[in-house]
């Protein structure tokens, strides 16, 4: 395994209770009241008209009633309900504010890229703008316990002990001391949830305390596409597995009948055939072998709509393929082709699945300069075992990868390409741009034609349909591995 894979594991973490010092200031409402009071009184003096002093009176009364007591520190606990999730899966961010006294607590999540505040049934992904307008107000339940702010939440109690968010879900804004803020993530990766802005307001809403807290990071795995069928090679390495091979062996799939020879197991004697022929006949079965599958996800061209780019499709398809092959105990390896190449050597089991998922989370290693050499051919033998089926999820926009695939085919590897290109160059609609776009399309067709000519099957997948549909021609029967 590439050692770099395990390095960013610490990124997945939760935030414990922390003490925060609010930055207190006059609210905009108080500033407007001050303006009204001052202007009214000044005009009353200048014009000698008492009604202007009357205009200022409500503002002056409200300002005079302001009480200076406010907490110097408050406790904030932020805990997501899950730190590992898949795309589109909903989770809650549990926020508890303690030690805020009788101040109301208003929370607003500023989500980062691909993080969408909202609950199931809430607004559609992408429709919720940061800072969406929702009602808020002082939390129900009255003042909190007056224990010191530094005490544990259990001792202090939430600042406003009401139920969860009193605003509608789906907007990331609420006003309560103990709140669940629903969210989901739309793209694979290690995602920082963003920042949480907490505003404390006094009873008269004249002073405000602001706190901004960095929210924890969550690992978002790709949502595997639907795949039930598998492509199996005609030649399989001699390891025990679940795929019936051409050679006879100890499997369960019946292949024929032959004459009994000394040493054969008696329990396999086919008595009806023996009766018909007068000599002992034996059932023969296909040997069951495992398959080495190496999945290559091309993450070099992140073009198109976020959430449906070729990279997203490549990861979803790779996750589906890995899950499908690992389910039948095949050895599955994984290679991410980006600015650099990262890989997981073929392995078995659920643990291997999560190793593959973790490799998808790791971002590109930008420190390494972009190499012009076809790096995949230089991977160690363990990463690309001979006789492996190589499944490539790629938009085929990177010429280096195309050349590398040609080279791998010439070296005898069985390759199947799943084309995930679902975007075109955008631009003006004039004739020159149209011509350039047409040439680009012809180039893409030429690349695909040349790969097919080399004997590399190529299927197209749009990311919406099941992977079984494009793979059906190759999954119905074994794929002949040619050298």
């Amino acid at each position, binding site marked *: 395994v590439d050692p770099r894979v395990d390095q960013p594991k610490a990124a997945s973490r939760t935030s414990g209770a922390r003490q925060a010092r609010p930055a207190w*200031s*006059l609210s*905009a*409402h108080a*500033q*407007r*009241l*001050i*303006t*009204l*009071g*001052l*202007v*009214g*009184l000044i*005009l*009353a*003096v*200048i*014009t*000698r*008209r*008492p*009604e*202007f*002093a*009357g*205009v*200022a*009176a*409500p*503002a*002056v*009364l*409200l*300002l*005079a*009633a302001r009480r200076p007591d406010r907490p110097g520190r408050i406790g904030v606990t932020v805990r997501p309900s899950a730190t590992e999730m898949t795309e589109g899966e909903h989770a809650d961010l549990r926020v508890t504010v303690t030690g805020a006294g009788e101040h*109301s607590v*208003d929370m*607003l999540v*500023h989500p980062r*890229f691909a993080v969408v505040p909202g609950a199931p049934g809430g607004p559609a992904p992408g429709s919720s*703008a*940061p*800072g969406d*307008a929702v*009602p*808020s*107000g*002082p939390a129900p339940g009255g003042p909190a316990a007056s224990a010191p702010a530094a005490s544990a939440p259990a001792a202090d109690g939430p600042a406003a002990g009401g139920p969860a968010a009193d605003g509608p879900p789906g907007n990331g*804004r609420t*006003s309560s001391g103990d709140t669940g803020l629903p969210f989901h993530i739309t793209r694979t990766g290690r995602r920082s949830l*963003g*920042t949480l802005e907490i505003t404390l*307001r006094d*009873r*008269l*809403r004249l*002073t405000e305390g602001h706190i901004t807290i960095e929210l924890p990071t969550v690992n978002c795995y790709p949502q595997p596409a639907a795949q039930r069928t598998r492509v199996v090679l005609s030649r399989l390495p001699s390891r025990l597995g679940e795929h019936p091979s051409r050679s006879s062996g100890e499997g369960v799939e019946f292949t024929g009948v032959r004459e009994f020879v000394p040493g054969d197991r008696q329990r396999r004697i086919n008595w009806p055939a023996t009766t018909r022929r007068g000599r002992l006949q034996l059932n023969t079965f296909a040997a069951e072998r495992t398959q080495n599958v190496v999945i290559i996800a091309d993450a070099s061209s992140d073009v198109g709509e976020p959430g449906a780019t070729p990279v997203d499709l490549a990861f979803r398809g790779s996750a589906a393929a890995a899950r499908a092959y690992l389910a039948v105990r095949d050895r599955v390896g994984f290679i991410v082709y980006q600015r650099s190449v990262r890989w997981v050597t073929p392995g078995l089991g659920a643990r291997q699945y999560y190793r593959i998922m973790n490799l998808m989370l790791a971002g590109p290693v930008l420190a390494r300069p972009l190499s012009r050499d076809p790096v995949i051919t230089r991977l160690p033998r363990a990463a690309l075992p001979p006789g492996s089926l190589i499944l490539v999820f790629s938009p085929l926009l990177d010429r280096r990868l195309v050349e590398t695939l040609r080279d791998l085919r010439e070296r005898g590897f069985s390759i199947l390409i799943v084309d995930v290109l679902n975007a075109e160059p955008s631009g003006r609609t004039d004739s020159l741009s149209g011509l350039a776009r047409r040439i680009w399309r012809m180039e893409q067709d030429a690349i695909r034609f040349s790969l097919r000519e080399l004997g590399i099957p190529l299927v197209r997948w749009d990311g919406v349909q099941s992977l079984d549909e494009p793979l059906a021609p190759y999954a119905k029967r074994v794929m002949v591995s040619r050298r």
Partner: protein
Amino acid sequence: VTARIVGAAGFLAALCVAWSALPLPPTGIAATILAAAIAFGVLSLIRLMLGPEPVEPAGFLDPVQRSARSVADLIRVLPWAEGMLVATLVLEALHRSLPWHTGLLGVALLSYLFAVHLAESRARLAVLRPQAPLIAAGLGLLALAVGAAMLPADTGSSADLLAILAGVAAVAVAGLVIPV
């Protein structure tokens, strides 16, 4: 709910400006201040409609969008509601109107300020409940002031005393800003 509150704030802003402009038409400097009050009122409404500042980085926007965002940021930063407040009060002071006229303007301005606050903080009307007694007391004082102004004019010491009291109150209001 927010749209309704913003609508109410718009209505109150229009009402305040129109009320302070009466009797029409204002001339000279009053016309200029009226134009400023209208502009401030419209911009304060635009500010409410824009909402809080978006958090996405502006790096991937085209120049037109970036310019629009800069203009929006400018609108968010400046205190348009305060500007409208000052303009309407000055406009009211510029022409001689009846005390009850000014009193009603005061009520409308106070309502406008609360509507702006509710729209700005996306809060419900119920959050103003703790302030209700103080607002009621303030409105009572306003009614008293209007009533006092409608009494026959007294050019003697009571008017001077009122001016001194107003001056002291103005200093006290300015002092309220200092602790924060």
